[in-house]
């Protein structure tokens, strides 16, 4: 069972992981302590592996700092569902193998709600067994997730996941 964390529109990288809490300023080991350290201090203490982030549009806008999605990946966020993502955040999350789904679930799921996230079937299942279908990810994204990230994909296939035969 996973908890839903609901966020608003335009959640920027300075909220997800402020620049001064990046591993460069602190340490690699402390990365898990700082996601939403100022915007939502209880997040890092209470988040559990497999939890789901449900947010508004333009999630991850701002910096190219990869440690923003990496901090969410490191604490075990299963997926982020938002109507839209900022392009660098989308790319970084995809490259890390952190699933992103473009949908607005804020009317369906509340903060703190308990759900099951079924990534194999692209579904979120509520405690009352209501199934919410997530939009099917692109074949490109699926290929990267399946290998656990773009670097792992490249190591295995010797190429980027682009083109018919990829």
């Amino acid at each position, binding site marked *: 069972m996973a908890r839903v964390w609901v966020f608003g529109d335009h959640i920027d990288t300075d909220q997800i992981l402020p620049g001064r809490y990046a591993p460069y*300023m602190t340490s690699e080991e402390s990365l898990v302590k700082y996601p939403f350290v100022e915007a939502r201090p209880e997040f890092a203490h209470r988040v559990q592996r497999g939890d789901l982030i449900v947010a508004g549009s*333009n999630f991850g806008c701002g910096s190219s700092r990869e440690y923003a999605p990496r901090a969410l990946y490191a604490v075990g966020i299963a997926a982020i569902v938002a109507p839209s993502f900022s392009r660098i955040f989308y790319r970084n999350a995809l*490259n890390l193998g952190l699933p992103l789904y473009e949908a607005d679930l804020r009317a369906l799921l509340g903060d703190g709600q308990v759900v099951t996230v079924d990534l194999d079937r692209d579904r979120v299942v509520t405690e009352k067994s209501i199934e919410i279908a997530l939009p099917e990810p692109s074949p490109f994204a699926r290929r990267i997730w399946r290998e656990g990230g773009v670097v792992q994909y490249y190591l295995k296939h010797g190429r980027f996941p682009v083109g018919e035969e990829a």
Partner: protein
Amino acid sequence: MKNTNTRHSGTLSEQIISHAAGRPVRADDLVVVDVDRCMTHDSLTPEVISVLRDTLHAERIHDPDRVAVIIDHVAPASTVATADAQVDTRQWVAEQGIARFHDVGSGVCHQVMIEEHYVAPGQIALGTDSHATAYGSVGAFGTGVGSRDMALALATGQTWLRVPRTFRVILEGHMRPGVSAKDISLSLCGLLGLDGATYRAIEFHGGEWMTLSSRETLCSMTTELGAKAGLFLPSGDVADEFPIPEWLAPDPDAEYERTLRVDLDALVPQVSVPPEVDIVKAAAELGDVRVDQVFIGTCTNGRLQDLRAAAAILKGKKLAAGVRMLIIPASHRILRDAMADGTMETLLAAGATVGTPGCGPCIGRHMGVIGAGEVCLSTANRNFRGRMGSPEGSIYLSSPETAAATALTGHITDPTAL
């Protein structure tokens, strides 16, 4: 197929990516291309090195001559952790034989890339920094990426790109004195919103008379609209300095997803109000906003043109009581030029202080972070909560002209009303 003079049709982005792909491509196509230039700075380089070493097991990068490494985000180092990370970065740079290395004090990475002519029209340039869109000021397709994209580009010489659709922004008329490029950028942010151009390229037309400095401001700020790239085709002095390859030329049949016109004659000084860049108001209509700190600098507005504009307003005058003014030139060269022509003397005489060329407090790490309850007017590009220090501080964004006028009065002031 690359390095031929084959002409491709389409927007500037489509032409540049077609050239790189060696075949005609259109918006929404997914392609793998050679990367002409890679820029990585001190903040993400440790992670890039770690991916190269520990995951890719890449002892040598693909081509050190295509790479520049610049220390600007925490420069000089403010803590033992950052100093240690910079030691590792310097060692790796030496091991890899990267000649284009610029250490503490050289300036903000994007400014150094352009000043040193490390980017050129028609190139594809990646930077581990969202404001790599600035390379569009010389007609390059510049875009920001994270550490894994950069590690793969360094290891393989390639990257994957989705060809963006393009918004065309036509600049009409001329700006009044006291109004400058940042006001155009902020008005576009107000108009389009923080995600108004997500995944799009923005192509600027009609600004053929614009200086390179103004083009850099406009192109770097397209990131704040969510854009993947912001481009000008070099013209005038910029084209003399950055010659355009034969194959790159405007295509009258290019397809733009949207066209916007900006009436420069009607433009007034703009201010972005915390906590989001797209909350934009006319400086004159802001009411009484007292400031504690004025910061002029960054890749957005820390060039000689910007410092001169501020000096022209502050000449022979003094900062308002209780206001700190921090000047951080965007590069070492700009600092020296501003000393040579008297600009720096004027700013210092007015009561300003000067920091090491680099990013300064823009990312809230050192050299001018703000405390709880403080208000900063900054010429940087972002005003998100906590960006420059305390999450209880407030960041307003403006042009250098508005910043200088504000330093004089102590409250946010329209420079055209002085």
